[in-house]
């Protein structure tokens, strides 16, 4: 744990989360824990067909059932919505066509869940089935029967970027590798299934309690869908049982609950089953990466060319952003001058994908770090050394116009080099055991907001009144990552008081100023900075009043340990309580504010699609995985993962380590065992029994190492900690498997049968082509 605290009292010291007690006593409320008198239970009717025209819907029998209060269909809320302004293609309920198995067709609100379920069976829908598109590479060849008539050839969006001169770069390469990678689809699988309680108030307002990472986008969307002014709607975020991006756009149950509540003029709660969580999805898309990378004999990456196809599902969601992140982050971690990127977001008749932890970067990183390992071996170089030879020199601007202000990757690499015993282990372990390394990086929030504007990305208010309690009003959404605690720490540090004195009111559109939401790892950087600014504003107001009272200059005073004291005259000192009284007498009211918007210089280039990728700062991670592979069963045990993460400054080392470990865990799951298995658009494993997120016994030991590069613009130097480490884990494991048994598996999850197949293939080659071929690595090509 980082011990250096730079003289701070609170920043940099491990602190239990401020809501920990609410959680461990079971008294904290999550959305499904809420209920109000007269509350109805809503249930959604889902499409049983992957692609079908809806000829008619008859809800009359359902409505006649005792206990059913209202039903709703597409006709009740026709306005389209979507998280991106360019992708308003969803509606509360399907109008005209159902686009995937699970699409939302209608809903009922009834007195009990049992009645509501029975009512669903009574809704008659007449469908005309249409052929479905399930394979992205097939789908993008479609000449007719498009999923969305406004998206010819089922292509939601495509981007083509060239930086530098890739052709020249490949010309300079001594080694070129070209591979196809396939990453299976994964779901956030937050332990809390989504829930929304929409309360129709007696004064015809709507109060919505929802499991959301983006209460302020939800606010806008409900206003549009329900055709109500935003001023009549209040969105409150209760405790959230994990998000990981699965709650970072508008989820169908949220609009459904509101439409039902408005129609019934009653409170309506909808809670998803786990199956519905999978059907609402918004996870990481199936990604196919055709990747070509050139390396010089000296170990310098000379050029990169990638063609990336993402299977986005039936709706736009965050799709264009995902595919842009894949391009923007692909090469920008290293010093690479020549990059060509062709990215396609394709529609298929499956649930919409979204912004899962490590949004856009994870699957291309898997491909890139795998091929780099492969090239290193081809060149006879240590893969870790190859990374060292391709580092950026910060501060700098990357080939694709990303501004890098702090760059802890070199230190991350050295840390894992030491702690993993890389030098002794790499290439020296017995057959069946191996080590592999990989790096990753991520944004600390997007420099450009989803909805373009010149308004701040986040605002924090602080109020102090006669009780001398400090109340911080923040729009930032605590989803388990510790954002509330982070802001309490910052306010307490600046105001020189203990954290007990700080009260935090968060994520309530009626009480708190706006924050764009908990996604793209923006909260510590942005809300942290806004909170820092607000706290400084408050501190300055208090100090000004105290200084005036003593007839001194404000600069003469310092704020520390609950006192405002003259730096050289011990007699001139007030306790915080006394100072607040003085300040209230002077200012009348003690209200402070802080905002944050990324600086112009961080906002990236001017080309089409340049808006996604730029961030005020980037986090970095390097990891070494150590594995044991059973060559007879193909089973892999990950013995240990050493992960070093540059988070700028660990405001709270406890939560930073928790974020690194959680990211590594999720990467481990995707690497080896998580996979949404599709058959003709039907999800074969929509359950926690069959979609296998790791449990304790197979989960690796994780050693997390904090690296602090102190970013010049981050609050106290802090950057992102919650996502960046995920992406390195998958290729680190894949590379370790290669080190262990000499086969490369280019598709995730890396299941035992793929390893066995590759080992057999390798053996065939060896016996067929003589000894030479035995040493040639074998790639088990991507599936599909």
């Amino acid at each position, binding site marked *: 744990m980082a011990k250096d605290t730079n003289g701070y009292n609170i920043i940099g010291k491990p602190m*239990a*989360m401020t*809501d*920990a*007690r*609410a*959680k*461990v*006593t*079971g*008294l*904290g*409320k*999550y959305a*499904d*824990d809420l*209920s109000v008198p007269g509350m109805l239970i809503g249930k959604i009717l889902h499409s049983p067909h992957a692609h079908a025209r809806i000829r008619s819907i008859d809800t009359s029998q359902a409505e006649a059932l005792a206990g059913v209060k209202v039903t709703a269909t597409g006709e009740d809320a026709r306005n389209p919505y979507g998280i991106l302004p360019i992708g308003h293609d969803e509606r509360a309920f399907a109008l005209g066509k159902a686009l995937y198995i699970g699409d939302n067709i209608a809903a009922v609100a009834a007195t009990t869940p049992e009645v509501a379920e029975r009512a669903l069976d009574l809704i008659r829908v007449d469908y005309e089935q249409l052929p479905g598109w399930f394979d992205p590479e097939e789908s993008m060849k479609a000449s007719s029967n498009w999923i969305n008539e406004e998206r010819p050839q089922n292509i939601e969006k495509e981007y083509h970027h060239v930086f530098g001169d890739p052709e020249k770069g490949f010309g300079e390469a001594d080694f070129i590798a070209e591979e196809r990678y396939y990453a299976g689809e994964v779901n*956030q*699988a*937050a*332990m*809390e*299934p989504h829930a929304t309680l929409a309360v129709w108030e007696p004064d015809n307002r709507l109060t919505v309690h929802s499991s959301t990472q983006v209460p302020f986008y939800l606010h806008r969307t409900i206003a549009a869908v329900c055709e109500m002014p935003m001023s009549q709607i209040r969105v409150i975020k209760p*405790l*959230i*049982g*994990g*998000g*990981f991006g699965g709650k970072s756009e508008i989820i169908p149950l949220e609009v459904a609950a509101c439409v039902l509540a408005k129609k019934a003029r009653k409170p309506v709660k909808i809670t998803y*089953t*786990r*199956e519905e969580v999978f059907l609402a999805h918004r996870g990481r898309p199936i990604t196919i990466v055709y990747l070509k990378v050139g390396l010089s004999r000296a170990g310098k990456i000379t050029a990169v060319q990638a063609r990336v196809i993402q299977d986005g599902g039936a709706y736009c969601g965050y799709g264009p952003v995902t595919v842009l992140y894949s391009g923007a982050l692909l090469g920008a971690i290293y010093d690479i001058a020549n990059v060509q990127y062709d990215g396609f977001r394709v529609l298929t008749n499956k649930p919409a994908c979204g912004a899962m932890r490590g949004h856009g970067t994870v699957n291309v990183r898997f491909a890139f770090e795998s091929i780099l390992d492969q090239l290193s071996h081809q060149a006879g170089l240590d893969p870790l050394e190859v990374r060292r030879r391709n580092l950026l020199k910060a501060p700098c601007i990357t080939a694709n116009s990303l501004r890098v202000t702090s760059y802890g990757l070199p230190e991350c690499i050295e840390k894992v080099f030491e702690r993993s015993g890389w030098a002794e282990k790499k290439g020296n372990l017995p057959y069946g055991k191996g080590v592999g390394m990989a790096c990753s990086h991520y944004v600390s929030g997007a420099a450009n907001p989803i909805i373009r504007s010149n308004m701040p990305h986040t605002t924090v208010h602080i109020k102090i009144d006669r009780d001398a309690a400090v109340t911080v009003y923040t729009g930032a959404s605590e*989803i*388990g*990552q*510790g954002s509330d605690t982070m802001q309490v720490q910052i306010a307490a540090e600046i105001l020189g008081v203990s954290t007990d004195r700080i009260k935090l009111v968060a994520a309530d559109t009626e009480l708190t100023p706006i924050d764009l939401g908990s996604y793209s790892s923006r909260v510590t950087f942005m809300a942290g900075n806004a909170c820092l600014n607000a706290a400084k504003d408050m501190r300055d107001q208090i100090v000004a009043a105290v200084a005036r009272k003593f007839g001194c200059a404000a600069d003469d005073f310092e704020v520390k340990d609950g006192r405002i004291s003259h730096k050289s005259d011990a007699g001139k000192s007030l306790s915080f309580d006394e100072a607040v009284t003085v300040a209230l007498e002077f200012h009348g009211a003690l209200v402070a504010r802080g905002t944050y918007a990324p600086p112009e210089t961080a906002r990236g280039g001017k080309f089409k699609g340049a808006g996604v990728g730029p961030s005020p700062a980037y986090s970095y991670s390097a990891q070494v995985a150590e594995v044991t592979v059973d060559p007879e069963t193909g089973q892999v045990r990950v013995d240990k993962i050493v992960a070093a993460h540059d988070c700028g400054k660990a405001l709270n080392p*406890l*939560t930073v*380590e*928790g974020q690194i*470990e*959680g*990211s*590594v*865990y*999720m990467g481990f799951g995707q690497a080896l065992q998580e996979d949404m298995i599709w058959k003709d658009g039907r999800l074969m494993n929509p*359950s*926690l*029994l069959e979609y296998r*997120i790791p*449990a*304790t*016994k197979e*989960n690796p*030991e*994780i050693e*997390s190492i904090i690296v602090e590069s102190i970013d010049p613009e981050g609050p106290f130097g802090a950057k992102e900690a919650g996502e960046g480490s995920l992406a390195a884990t998958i290729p680190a494991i894949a590379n370790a498997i290669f080190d262990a048994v000499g086969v490369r598996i280019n598709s995730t999850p890396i299941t035992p049968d793929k390893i066995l197949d590759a080992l057999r293939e390798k053996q065939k080659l060896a016996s067929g082509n003589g000894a030479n071929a035995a040493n040639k690595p074998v790639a088990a090509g991507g599936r599909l």
Partner: protein
Amino acid sequence: MNKELTHLRVNGEEREIAITPNRLLLDALREDLGLTGSKRGCDDSSCGCCAVLIDGTPMLSCVALAASYEGREITTVEGLGGPGELDPVQEGYAEMGGAQCGYCTPGFMIATKALLDRNPDPTMDEIREALSGNLCRCTGYMQIYESVKYAIEKLRAKSATQAPATR
């Protein structure tokens, strides 16, 4: 379906509720008794979020029919610790990062409590085994182990100070 009066002993208190025979203990706790600390995370009894102690043994309240557990001693997360006081297990999960989003935490604490009640000095393997029926999506489990170790230390210190008194 007719409701029947059912007597449950929850967190040391006798509670009487009118429920249908198909009422799950999890729903009885959450809906009928307002004890929403026990969570539902899955449809197929595979996640452990709903775990409660029944006569000291951790069980899944999402597979238990409430009426079948009349007369048994049921302990939920709300029954750990005393008024205003945390059980060492709760303290461990709060202090050491064992609870990130906190949704899995009640189930993990129940499993931990049962483990430490029977085995105050478990090995790492025993801890992993005891918690292997609970899923957590946030922590990567490392800080959960730290939380358990914290509780072990706390309990050890407690019994050390109590031992002379009982002698």
